[in-house]
């Protein structure tokens, strides 16, 4: 991953990558609202403005009291964000990689997510946790896991995994102003691939999926960097005459049941694809919900594709085998379509 993509020209109209979009969202949010704070390891400009540059420029513009680099102390990072949030601020806390949320789970799960409920509504914890993850760079077993299923299973925290730069901008603007804790996962490549962003991209509501492509034979639901893979499969399937409706979930919890179920009811077939492990993964909830809501209405069982039951491997060859690839999606979609 290059650290210099932030410096790529951001022209008034269009192209921007995810990293630039998040940076723009943070700039805008901090400008508009003095209560917005940013903290995390290496995030201030003295420390390079973040390991991949997402927060670059913020501390220079807003000062190191609002944009604070921290020690390597994830419990302390989330704890400080919780206290500041309860004290009236809107902190955006970075946990450098999603695997490192494991050292801060108490703060996230037992505190951030629960304090409003346990206090009978007296405590408000409007904070965002930003974290990066994703396989594909041979970072191996401890640097590429997707744990969104854990957080979806935890009441009181919202889970967002954007795909496009426009969504990054819009979902960040919403998450920062949301009255409750939100974890946003920056999923590998999504930070680095430029796409068109409306010049004045405003907030995009949390909890709403995006129908990326309409279709009639099968619905494929995905999110994050796996959307790139799904779109490759979509091209091939379209060429092969299969009409696919592609849905980018965007928010994984609470997820947009209405949009997904309406689409699955229309096409009669549903396939969920994610990078997280298939076993007890997010797709299980979607499949379980759909089989109940659409009992007797589906022409095939709900399909699920996700990582196999193992750690993320190092060797490129194994990493490729570990990740869901377009041919698997194509084969599974065709199998489901052929079923009835």
């Amino acid at each position, binding site marked *: 991953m290059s650290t210099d993509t932030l410096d790529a020209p951001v022209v008034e109209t269009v192209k921007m990558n995810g990293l630039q979009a998040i940076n723009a969202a943070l700039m805008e949010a901090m400008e508009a609202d003095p209560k917005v704070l940013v903290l995390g390891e290496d995030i201030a400009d003295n420390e390079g403005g973040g390991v991949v540059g997402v927060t670059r420029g913020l501390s220079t513009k807003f000062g190191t009291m609002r944009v604070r680099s921290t020690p390597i*102390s994830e*419990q302390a990072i989330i*704890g400080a964000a*919780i206290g*500041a949030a309860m*004290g009236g601020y809107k902190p955006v806390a970075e946990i450098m990689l999603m695997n490192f949320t494991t050292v801060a789970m108490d703060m996230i799960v037992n*505190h951030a997510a629960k304090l409003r409920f346990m206090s009978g509504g007296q405590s*408000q914890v409007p904070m965002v946790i930003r974290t990066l993850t994703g396989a594909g760079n041979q970072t191996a077993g401890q640097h590429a896991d997707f744990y969104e299923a854990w957080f979806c299973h935890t009441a009181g925290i919202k889970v967002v995994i954007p795909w496009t730069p426009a969504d990054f901008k819009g979902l960040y603007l919403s998450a920062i102003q949301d009255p409750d804790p939100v974890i946003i996962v920056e999923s590998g490549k999504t930070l680095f691939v430029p796409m068109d962003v409306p010049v004045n991209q405003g907030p995009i509501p949390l909890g709403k999926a995006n129908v990326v492509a309409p279709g009639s034979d099968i619905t494929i639901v995905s999110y994050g960097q796996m959307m790139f893979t799904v779109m490759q499969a979509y091209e091939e399937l379209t060429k092969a005459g299969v009409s696919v409706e592609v849905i980018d979930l965007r928010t994984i919890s609470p997820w947009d*049941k209405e949009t997904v179920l309406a689409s699955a009811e229309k096409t009669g077939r549903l396939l969920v694809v994610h990078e997280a492990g298939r076993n007890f993964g997010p797709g299980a909830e979607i499949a379980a919900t759909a089989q109940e809501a659409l009992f007797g209405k589906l022409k095939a069982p709900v399909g699920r594709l996700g990582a196999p039951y193992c750690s993320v491997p190092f060797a490129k060859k194994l990493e490729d085998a570990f990740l869901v690839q377009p041919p698997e999606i194509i084969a599974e979609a065709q199998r489901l379509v052929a079923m009835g």
Partner: protein
Amino acid sequence: MSETSENRALENRAVPDAKTQLDIYRRMIRIERNDDATRSQIRRGRITAPYYSARGQECIPSAISVLLNNDDKICTIYRGIHDMVAKDMPLRPLWAEICGRVDGTCKGKGGPMHLTHPETGVMVTTGIVGSSMPIANGFGWAALLDGTKQVTVAYFGDGASNIGAFHEALNLASVWKLPVIFVCQNNGFAEHTRYENGTAVDQISKRAIGYGMPGYTVDGNDPVDVYAHAHAAIERARAGEGPTLLECKTFRFMGHVFGDNDAYMTKEEKAAAMADDPLPKFRQKLIDDGVTTAEELDALTGRIEAEVNDAIEFAMACEYPSDDELRRDVFAEEIPAKEYMA
């Protein structure tokens, strides 16, 4: 008492005046009467929650709280009702909460382990060992940003000084010079484990050296000693100079949790500790020093007992929360009934 090798003895020992001493005593006896009533209600089956009595530890938060303003904050733990009562949290919503009623401070959803009362600065009560400290830092950061002189006190036990969160929180507070006072109520035990079997240093205050902050070991049963050190720590925090670690040595008379049989301690050590009960000692001192009279103290106790009884009666008359509460306060926006299960 003693100071750590890195920290000079306190130079300007602030001394509580007569009025302040009386106020400390008022808070102590309010804690003690409230604790006694709680245990008696549990014995009578009118409260069914686990209860972690702080009987014996009254002096610590009382001598600290007289130095705090209403908008100064505390983050405390399961064994923390004494910290709240010392902070002058009203007893009616407290009791309604521990009785699981809708008029409780948390609508009956949090219970004794998660009591919260922002109006008196009781921000967080947590059941996870060590977790009061990282959150206290956030209030400290907010106070710096707000430009107020507010301080936050994080209360925790001796056993909690061995968990990772303690370390991360104290280091961050020191690097950021946060207005936080870390108060360790060292009662010599973590559940059933003796201090020395879990903690590799003879004084927890020495750990302050590793965070470049002042640390003091204080006689937690002596209001004058606690006051002097808390005064210095709070002044330091308000002056923007950063955090302090106060280790206050004390004892919990009622074991870890209601029903504890104290099997892990000797009769002798318990008797010795109880002989150092801070309450009768301080009462006698106030009388001996001519600060007040026995009659005045008895009258004070009477008023407090009336307050406690009123709170109990209030609580017992309150309604239980409606089941709809399960859908409320998960998020700011209520979860619609139809989505209840998902």
